[in-house]
C-alpha cells in the first residue's frame, strides 16, 4: 500500500454543528440601523426572535473555514467526473460577476449594459451551436431540458398534433425522462447499439405518429459521437418529430461540429460545465435553451429586444411563448461568467479547448485500457467509460476503486453511469489538466488495479485518511435525521 495522500488532510474528524456552537449572547454582530427602531405594532410580530443559533463572528468564520477543509474542489487537483466537465474556473469571471452584485433587476438604467452583454452572450452561444434563437433564463441543465420540451410540446400543440412519446437512448441522463414527464410526455427507452451509438435503422423501428421527439446527448455519455446523427435527424423530421440534444457534452465539439448543422431542433447547454463557471457544490448553474427558427416563437418570456423605448428592453409577454420559467432573468451572474470565459478564450481558444479535452481523455484511455475493461472499443472524444469487470474477479468493485482514488488525492470519476455499462467508471479529465496530473491519475488507477489483485481488503476499507471513512448511506435512509430538530427533538 502506498503512503496515503489524502485529498483533505484534516486534524479533526468532527466539526461541531452550529447548534452545538451556539450560546446565549455570543452573537455580537452590529447590523446597520439607519432608521429609528420602532415596534411596528400594526403587524403580528412573533413574540421571540427566530430560533437561530447564536455564534460569534470569529466562530462563524472558523466553522465554515474548517468545514471547507472537509471538501475537495478542482483547485486541489483533477476532478474527472464524466459528463460533468469539471474544468478550471477562471477567477476573472468571479471578479466581473461581482460588478453587477448591487444592481436590482428592476433598475432599468443599470440593467442596460447587463442586457447588452446578455445579448452578446446569446449570439455567441447561438453561433457556437449553429442555432437561430435562444433563451438564457433556465437555471440549470434540467431546467433547460424542461424548457426545451415545453417548447416542443407547444410547437406540436400549435399545429394540432397531440403526440406523447419521447424516445430516449439508454445512455441518457436520468433527468431527460424526468423532464419529459413534467412536460407531459411519456419517455420510451431506446437501446443504443452494440457499438455504443444509436443506429438510424434501429431508431426507425421506434418511429410512429405518436413520437414527439428524440432526446439525444451528443457525444453521448460513453464519449462516442453519434455518427448517424444527421440521418437520425432526417428520419425524425420526415416523421414530423423533433430532435432534442442534451448539450451536457458540448465540451467535446466546440468549434468542431455544431448541433444546428446536425439537424438538432432544440437543445440546452450547461454553462457550469462547458463554460468554466464554478459548480458551487451544487449550483448555481445555468442551462440556456437554443432552438431553430421554427421553435423560436415558443421560447420563454421575457425576450431581450434591442430597440425598446429607452434602449435595450425586456418584452414581458409574447403571444406564442410558453410563458416564464424563472422569476427573473435566470442566474445572471453565471451567464456573465460564461461570457467572460468565451471572451477570454476567443474563437480559436474555444475550439482548442475542445481539442485538448479530447486529447487528454484519449491519453488516459490509452493508458488505462491496458489494465481495465473498456466495454466499447468505438473511438471516443472527451470522455470514456471503463468497467470493473477485470477487478471484480478478485471481489473489487467500482465503488471500492472510486473510494481508493481519494487516497491518491483525486476526486473519483462518475461511477455506475451510464447504466448500459455494469460497474461503469466514467472519466472526463477536461482540457484543464496538465500532462503531469493526467499521468499521476493513470498511475494511481494502475496502482489501484494491482492492489485489487494483491490486497483487495484494503480497497474494501477505502478511503482512509479522508475526513470521514466510508459513509453508511443505509443508516441515513433508515433514520432520516434531516435537521437539528430530528437530532435532538427536545432542543
Amino acid at each position: 500500500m502506498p503512503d496515503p495522500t489524502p485529498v483533505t488532510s484534516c486534524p479533526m474528524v468532527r466539526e461541531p454543528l452550529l447548534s452545538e456552537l451556539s450560546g446565549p449572547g455570543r452573537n455580537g454582530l452590529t447590523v446597520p440601523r439607519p432608521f429609528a427602531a420602532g415596534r411596528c405594532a400594526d403587524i403580528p410580530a412573533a413574540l421571540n426572535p427566530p430560533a437561530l443559533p447564536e455564534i460569534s463572528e470569529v466562530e462563524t468564520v472558523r466553522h465554515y473555514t474548517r468545514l471547507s477543509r472537509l471538501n475537495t474542489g478542482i483547485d486541489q487537483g483533477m476532478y474527472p467526473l464524466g459528463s460533468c466537465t469539471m474544468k478550471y474556473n477562471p477567477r476573472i469571471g468571479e471578479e466581473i460577476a461581482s460588478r453587477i452584485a448591487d444592481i436590482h433587476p428592476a433598475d432599468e438604467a443599470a440593467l442596460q449594459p447587463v442586457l447588452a452583454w446578455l445579448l452578446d452572450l446569446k449570439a455567441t452561444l447561438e453561433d457556437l451551436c449553429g442555432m437561430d434563437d435562444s433563451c438564457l433564463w433556465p437555471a440549470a441543465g434540467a431546467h433547460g431540458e424542461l424548457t426545451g420540451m415545453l417548447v416542443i410540446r407547444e410547437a406540436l400543440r400549435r399545429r394540432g398534433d397531440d403526440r406523447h412519446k419521447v424516445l430516449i437512448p439508454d445512455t441518457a441522463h436520468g433527468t431527460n425522462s424526468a423532464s419529459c414527464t413534467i412536460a407531459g410526455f411519456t419517455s420510451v427507452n431506446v437501446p443504443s447499439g452494440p457499438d455504443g451509438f444509436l443506429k438510424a435503422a434501429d431508431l426507425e423501428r421506434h418511429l410512429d405518429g405518436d413520437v414527439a421527439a428524440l432526446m439525444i446527448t451528443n457525444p453521448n455519455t460513453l464519449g462516442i459521437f453519434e455518427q448517424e446523427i444527421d440521418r437520425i435527424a432526417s428520419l425524425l423530421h420526415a416523421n414530423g418529430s423533433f430532435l432534442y440534444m442534451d448539450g451536457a457534452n458540448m465540451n467535446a465539439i466546440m468549434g468542431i461540429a455544431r448541433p444546428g448543422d446536425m439537424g438538432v431542433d432544440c437543445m440546452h447547454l450547461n454553462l457550469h460545465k462547458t463554460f468554466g463557471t464554478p459548480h458551487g457544490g451544487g449550483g448555481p448553474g445555468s442551462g440556456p435553451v437554443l432552438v431553430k427558427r421554427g421553435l423560436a416563437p415558443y421560447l420563454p418570456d421575457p425576450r431581450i429586444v434591442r430597440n425598446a423605448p429607452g434602449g435595450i428592453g425586456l418584452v414581458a409577454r409574447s403571444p406564442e411563448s410558453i410563458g416564464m420559467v424563472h422569476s427573473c432573468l435566470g442566474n445572471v451572474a453565471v451567464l456573465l461568467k460564461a461570457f467572460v470565459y468565451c471572451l477570454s478564450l476567443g474563437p480559436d481558444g474555444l475550439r482548442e479547448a475542445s481539442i485538448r479535452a479530447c486529447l487528454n481523455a484519449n491519453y488516459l484511455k490509452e493508458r488505462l485500457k491496458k489494465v481495465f475493461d473498456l466495454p466499447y472499443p468505438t473511438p471516443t472524444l472527451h470522455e470514456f467509460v471503463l468497467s470493473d469487470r477485470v477487478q471484480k474477479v478478485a471481489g473489487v468493485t467500482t465503488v471500492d476503486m472510486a473510494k481508493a482514488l481519494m487516497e491518491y488525492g483525486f476526486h473519483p470519476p462518475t461511477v455506475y453511469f451510464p447504466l448500459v455499462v455494469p460497474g461503469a467508471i466514467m472519466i472526463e479529465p477536461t482540457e484543464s489538466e496538465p500532462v503531469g496530473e493526467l499521468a499521476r491519475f493513470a498511475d494511481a488507477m494502475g496502482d489501484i488495479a494491482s492492489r485489487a489483485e494483491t490486497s483487495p481488503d484494503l480497497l474494501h476499507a477505502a478511503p482512509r485518511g479522508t475526513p470521514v471513512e466510508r459513509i453508511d448511506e443505509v443508516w441515513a435512509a433508515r433514520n432520516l435525521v434531516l435537521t437539528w430538530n430530528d437530532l435532538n427533538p427536545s432542543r
Partner: protein
Amino acid sequence: MNIPEGLRYTKDHEWVRVEDGTVRMGITDYAQHELGDVVFVEIKPAGTQLKAGDAVGTVESVKAVSDVYAPVAGTVTEVNAELEASPELVNSDCYGRGWMAALTLASTPDLDALMDAAAYRAYLEQEAK
C-alpha cells in the same frame, strides 16, 4: 438461497402463503439480496383492490426502488405496519416478520399459475445463466 417449501412464487420474486381464504405475501430471499439493504417499504392501504400483476407497493434500497406486484387478484386486508419502523426485516426475515401485505382473494385464485419452491429454484438457476 432460502426458498421454503409450501410457498408459491412469482417470476417477479414475490412469495405467497395461502392462509384460510387470505394470502400473505412478501418478496423472496433472492429479491431482498438483489436489492440490498432495504430502507423503506410502502404498501397500498387496506381496502385497495388489485388485479394480479398490479403494483401493491414499492420497496426501496439506497440506490434502487422496485415495485412489488400482487401475485394474485384480491383486496388488501392488512399491511405489515412493523416495516414502517423496521424495513430491515425484509432483509433479515423476508418470509417471516418481513411479510408485506395480506390479501383476500377476489375469486378462486389460480395459484397453479404460480411456481412451487422447486420450480422457482429452477427458474432462478435458469435466470442466472
